[in-house]
């Protein structure tokens, strides 16, 4: 708990300091609001740091610590999500989403091939159709569907 608060207070302080310095360049009163906020955040992070160092007993109970395997799985999910988001433009929505759903399901331990493939293709296809035909908002153009002339 102490380490968490110490680290986060330093990060918040540096973020606020950076925001304060950046805001100095704005004129016409545009700098007042962000600078005021930065000062409040710096004071709060300073108080948090002092509390962590001198009065750790006052830190309220936080969420329970994750074990190593949980941390690993969540990190995998985050990285996979970032990769998926990055692949939407080059691959298109349908291809990137189908690949993502199938890959994630296998990576998380599911082995029911039929359910995985049917859900991935059916669900993503239905979503694409919903946006394109019902909401009239086509999702990013698809590479594979484009090659197939769909």
């Amino acid at each position, binding site marked *: 708990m102490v380490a*968490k608060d110490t*680290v*986060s207070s330093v990060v*918040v302080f540096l973020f606020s300091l950076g*925001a304060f310095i*950046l805001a100095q360049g*704005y*004129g*016409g*009163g*545009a700098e*007042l*609001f*962000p600078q005021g*906020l930065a000062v*409040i*955040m710096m004071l*709060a992070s300073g*108080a*948090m740091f002092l*509390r962590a160092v001198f009065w750790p*007993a*006052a830190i*309220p*109970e*936080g*969420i329970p610590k*994750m074990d190593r395997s*949980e941390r690993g*799985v*969540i990190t995998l*999910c*985050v990285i996979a*999500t*970032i990769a*998926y*988001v990055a692949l*939407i*433009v080059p691959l298109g*929505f349908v291809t990137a*989403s189908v690949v993502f*759903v199938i890959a*994630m*399901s296998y990576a*998380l*331990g*599911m082995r029911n091939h039929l*359910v*995985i493939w049917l*859900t991935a293709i059916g*669900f*993503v296809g239905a*979503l694409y159709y919903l*946006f394109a035909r*019902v*909401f*009239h*908002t086509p*999702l*990013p153009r698809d590479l594979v569907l484009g090659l197939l002339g769909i």
Partner: protein
Amino acid sequence: MFQEIFAALYEMMTIGTIVAMICGTCLGICLGALPGIGATLGIALAIPFTYGMGPLPALALLAGIHNGSSQGGAIPAILLNMPGTPGAIVTTWDGHPLAQQGKAGGAINLSAISCAVGGSLSALSLILLAPPLAKVALAFGPPEIFWVNVFGIATVAALLGNDLLKGFIAACFGLFISAVGLDNVSGHERYTFGTLELVNGVATVAVMVGMFSLPPAWNLVRHARKRQNAAESMGKIRIVSEKIWTIAGVWRAWAVSSFIGIINGILPGSAIASFIAYNEAKRVSKNPEKFGKGSIEGLAAAECVNAADNASALIPTLTLGVPGSNVAALMLGALLIQGFQPGPQLFRDAPEIVYGYSWALVITALLLIPLGGALASRVFANVLRIPTTLLLPLIIVIASAGVFASQNSMFDVYVAAFFGVVGLAMIRFDFPIAPVIIGLVLGAKAEFNLRVSLMMSAGDYGILIFRPICIILIILTILIVTFPLYRAYQDWRNRKGGQGEVSAEH
């Protein structure tokens, strides 16, 4: 006023709105039934889909999700002893023992009717209490509106987490995000770093979806094994619908818990309403000894209070523009997306929207009786069988598609992913998420009113202080901020006292 209220009811009676209410309620029950999902994630995912809809069907859909998820949380609580939503913890105390006695269907039916009673009374309180409050708030000038916003942000920062400092930092972070983009008054660009997409500011939907849907989706894997084991055991439970209650047996529990729930909704920050309502229902019951062992009244109280704060939490949101909960903050964002500025002027400028939304909350609460009762016990309970391993990527795909479609912008999807990671880090470091969203939603309005006030007074800060309503709001803000400090001091003293006793025993 009554003419407008009933005119709004007439406007709600279109096929599109009725379908939206039914779909929203069904969807809400399913989402509430999935542990780890619930109303906040459901509404965050649904908001981008409402872009292409008219305001009334959009709000009706969200009202259905809101009420539906309150009842959906009871399904795993009763069947699996696993609360689908935080409010359903108390439901497990009597709901699961009833299921073990072979009364699962009856218990789900009772939970649906109790939610319908609590939800509809809460929505009626919104219809009756909000207009007079809005009338008072309409008299506010820019300095008062500024303080109302500060009060709202302070309330959420101080009461929705368990750490005042972290709550304030989170709120300030949200206010910072709202400052990104073109300054409304001077026209200066702030924190855009030369990025064209940031000139109009950070998209509220992208931040909301990123922070409220991605971290819970990623965290689903933590509960995957537990849920899978529980879902496998569900097959052994025989769901038979039978009437296990009478109005004479539960009306006291409904009355007490509805009242507590409505008050709890109006006063944000209290997460213990269900515990208070349960204890009060036990106190007024003729059979308090049955509580915790499958009491009908205990289940009725727990479920009624869960739904009773849904609509009443929107009283400060709709009248003052100050949300008091995660869902209320999302609803505020949903109104902004539909082009309506939440606040007292909404009652004057668009009464059909605000009353229509209130009616949607009444109707969707009543829809829980057919949809949440018989249907839930036979059909919706099966959503618990969906494996988490499949659910997680599907949520992320829906979130990405929704965020993209909201403004046809891939940049917003990147923003959502970024704020998802930020949200996850904040949760890991024990920072609350809700103040960020509330800061983001109220930030521009607070800054605008602050600067207009200062222009009105030619830079004299006295205008923000020496006005009667400002003084009241400042005092309320100080009280709200000092309350957690007092509570922390009391906790510390109790802990110190406890340690003293232990060392004395040794």
